[in-house]
């Protein structure tokens, strides 16, 4: 049995991706879409600037929820997210979560990621096995 109960908060994760994070994420992931790494290209297609990869932000949500199991990569069984507002480099990302159900060792968490008032990941759900 886990010690977690419905309504418990997941420890908050705060991370500020630096200016070149999207370039490093592009190299690590293989996604070189220019909207993430070329500020001029991003502006030319109507974006405010080059934007974060949604899957990077999802990675932070995975990290925040896996931390409940001490960062054990086996613990995360499922993660579903909706990408909404665009994520920006050089702005703090805050990942929060609340346990929605705990069944034996299996814990389901409602989680999201925000930058200020902008929800960059919403309606996300993580399942962790502790």
């Amino acid at each position, binding site marked *: 049995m886990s010690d977690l109960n419905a309504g418990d908060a997941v420890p908050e994760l705060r991370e500020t991706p630096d200016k070149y994070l999207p370039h490093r994420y592009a*190299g690590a992931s293989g996604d070189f879409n220019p909207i993430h790494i070329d500020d001029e290209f991003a502006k030319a297609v109507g974006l405010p600037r080059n934007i974060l990869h*949604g899957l990077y932000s999802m990675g932070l949500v995975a990290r925040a929820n896996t931390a409940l199991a001490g960062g*054990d990569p086996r613990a995360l069984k499922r993660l579903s997210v909706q990408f909404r507002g665009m994520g920006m480099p050089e702005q703090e990302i805050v990942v929060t979560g609340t346990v929605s159900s705990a069944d034996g060792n299996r814990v389901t968490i409602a989680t999201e990621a925000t930058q200020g008032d902008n929800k960059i990941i919403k309606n996300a759900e993580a399942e962790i096995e502790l």
Partner: protein
Amino acid sequence: MTLNTAAVGKEWPGVTYQVGREKVKEYATVLGLDNPVHFDLTAARDAGFRDVVAPPMFAVVYCGPALGPALFDPEVEMNFAAMVHGSQEFVWGEPACSGDEITTTARCVSIEEKGGMGFYVFETVSTNQDGAEVVRGTWTNIVRGV
């Protein structure tokens, strides 16, 4: 406009990706992970893994080469200029460790119009060299103004 749904049900050939220690380290570093099981062979083996283990979201790395040809297939007719990644789900099974050979197959699950937007849903299934399922991904791309 009616969306062309001819590609629904189409499956693309599997693509095999070999997981490597340095690539796992690179990906774990960019996400700010610090569990030594992603960086150090001894720590990984002590924790019960065959080799340095990939973080769960490393799935995007080994699924990418299989998903790309599906997204860019002319038969899918997806307008990239107006496309955003709408939602994503991963369901994980066996962990992915360095040295694993993971084969991913992509399939087009549905193409639907809702409220003037096109929803293109793809599923990827990734299995390792032992035939064990490593991850199942559902990738939803949204195209505005269809």
